[in-house]
């Protein structure tokens, strides 16, 4: 971990407040994500997890506070600009382009890149997900949930992201697939991609993440390393199912 100041965090929120109309969703949120880290954001329903992601990606503009990428203020950037700068998301419930083929889905993933060197990226995705190669010409909507998750991750990887945002990767998947999925996330992180996972499944997320933030009704209430969070009694009671 590179917390000793030299390079700025790849992505960070500083004192971010976000409103949906009159509703105050995020309250003074500070998050730092450093290069190569895997960070998770935990929280229950309606705690503001998805709003945090939307603010990071630029779907929502903070009413105060700043979003930084590599130390640069990106508040004025569009989503497309941020994606061009290396931010990519795997959305909740995969949300593939169901009526397009798997190949087309992957192509869209690489939308902002010049398309001459895509072969290597395809190979990388196929290596990680051999099933995707078999399904290449099939409509994405006809795949099983697990296969769709693979395509969604492949689609994100095609963008050669610096930071991969994952919204609830365990949502709607069988337990076996969840475990498999987290293994893959770990693998992607080991390959040098910074990963930010938003999860309700705290046990699973903390087992692979370096650090975690806990969000409660729009406020960061805990912020620590995974080991510390796993040992924290308050945390255990609220999120890890200990009684």
């Amino acid at each position, binding site marked *: 971990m590179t917390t000793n100041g030299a390079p700025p965090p790849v992505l960070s929120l500083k004192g971010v407040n976000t409103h949906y109309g009159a509703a105050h969703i995020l309250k003074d949120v500070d998050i730092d994500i450093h290069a190569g880290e895997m960070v998770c954001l935990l929280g229950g329903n309606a705690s503001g997890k998805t709003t945090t992601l939307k603010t990071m*990606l630029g*779907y929502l503009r903070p009413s105060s506070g700043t979003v930084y990428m590599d130390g640069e203020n990106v508040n004025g950037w*569009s*989503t*497309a600009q941020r*994606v*061009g700068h290396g931010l*990519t*998301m795997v*959305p909740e419930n995969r*949300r593939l*382009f*169901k*009526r*397009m083929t798997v190949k*087309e889905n992957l*192509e*869209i*993933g690489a*939308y*902002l890149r010049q*398309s001459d060197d895509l072969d290597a990226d395809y190979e990388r995705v196929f290596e990680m997900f051999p099933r995707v190669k078999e399904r290449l010409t099939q*409509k994405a*909507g*006809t795949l099983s949930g697990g296969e769709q998750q693979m395509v969604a991750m492949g*689609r994100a990887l095609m*963008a050669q992201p610096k930071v991969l945002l994952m919204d609830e990767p365990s949502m709607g998947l069988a337990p076996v697939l969840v475990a498999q999925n987290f293994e893959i996330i770990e693998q992607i992180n080991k390959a040098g991609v910074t990963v930010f996972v938003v999860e309700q499944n705290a046990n699973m997320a903390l087992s692979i993440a370096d650090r975690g933030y806990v969000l409660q009704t729009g406020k960061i209430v805990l912020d620590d390393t995974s080991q510390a969070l796993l040992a924290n009694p308050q945390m255990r009671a609220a999120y890890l199912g200990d009684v």
Partner: protein
Amino acid sequence: MVLVAATGMVATFQPRLVIDPIVPLGILFLYLLAFAFGWMAGQPPATLEGYEPATAGSRNVLAGALAGLLGGLCLGLLLIAITVFDLRGVFINMSPELAEILGFGLPVAAAVFVIAVASAFMGALGAGVHLLSRRVRRALIGALTAVIVFSVLTDLFGQLFAGLSLEPVIDFLYTGRGGALTIIGSVVIFGAFIVLFWWMEGRDSTLRQRVQAMPKGQRSRWQIGAALIILVILYFVPRIMGPFVSQILVTAGIYLLMALGLNIVVGYAGLLDLGYVAFFAVGAYTTAILTSPQSPAFNPEISVLASLPFVMVAAAIAGILVATPVIRMRGDYLAIVTLGFGEIARILLNSEWLAPVFGGAQGITNIPDLQIGPLTFSTPQDYFYPIFLFVLLAAYVTFALQKSRWGRAWMAMREDESVAEAMGVNIVTAKLSAFVVGAILASFGGSLFAAQIGSVFPHTFDIVVSITVLVIIIVGGMGSVPGVTLGALVLIVLPNLLREFSEYQFLFYGVLLIVMMLKRPEGFIPSKRRAQELHTEELSQDAWLEIYGEKGQAEQVPEGAV
């Protein structure tokens, strides 16, 4: 059937004889409906994997007869109602004349009996065709259709044979030019086509399959040859067909140009634009203002050809103007707002306020003919060629865009706007570009329209134009160029050729839309993608059926391709 009779169609069609002197169109149309009812009732249920296919038998015929009988009885009731009560106050079409036609001039009781029996018989026939072997069925139905087509399109064929200087053929088949078929003529046509369809069904492979089976070099030579032959035929079409048919083809071409443009906006980008006529108007008025010496405010009097670049710019600006406020809108809201824009365009053109520029209700007249070098285009026959050229261009643009980065971005946006954005698609430029490309194609249509008609008036640019273009792409097959072409031909050419039908044009559109949505939601000639989309969606509603998805599609496609 009652509805058809009540709307007055039968009475309107009646004077037109299909086969002189025995079969008038009105009655034929009515009983064809009974036939169709029977056909539907007798249709064997779709067979699924693992089920015994239901055997067609007398039960189907009975069902068909019942369906026909039901229709006939309703018609009988209508007849009684007409003769007993005077309904003309409410339903103006329910005249004694209609009663006379429906009842074959018989007394009421006898007439009701005859109608019921005849309808039941037609229903049974309709169901009965399912019992025939596929080959016989296709040949019979094909030949019957041919007779009806020859008879109904008498003007077209009259013109065709006259153009080819084959007047004796007209005298043989028809009772004079534009007349009905003679009995001998219909028998000859029926016989000829029954042989033709019989032979076509009997071949082991279609021409298309054979061409596809050829080695590559030979295949491309074949395709080039076929394209050349089609071009040569197209070159002669306006000459042979004369001004009347050419005018219809020119109109269809202009609609086709618009449909190809709207296809990009709606079919690719998924933006339902109901005010598309506005862009058509922009093209027409830009050309009118720049070329006509009678343009009220500003008349540089440049040539139509020279106005095209300005038209393009004007259309692009209009596209951006319309698209900008709707960037953040989706679905229904977008449709309603664009509908508003279409109306605003027409009202502005019509307004007194802008009359010094657009001429108000008087429009702009005296638009010169299109001139390219030494060639002047004045008659509808002349305009056929430039319009054909523009349609080719539009088709090419459509094909090229489909494979392009833009095309992919549009489709991703259609599927899921926010995820597309997360992949780096700039939604703002994607929407703007779709609107602009669509606007430019429509404006070229408008420009050619203005030059061909020679004048523009605000009332031409009615909401009906937008709706018609939309119906064309829905019926033809969204996203598919051949489909849209066929849609334009069917929806523009047919109603114009069938003089009797033109009054009921929109009724037919409505019926056609309903039937299409139920039976073939992907259009006549769907793009491969849409067909799969719609049918896999249907199938995957029952998850266990998903494995049979491939088979299901294979069965669906040839069914409606008659």
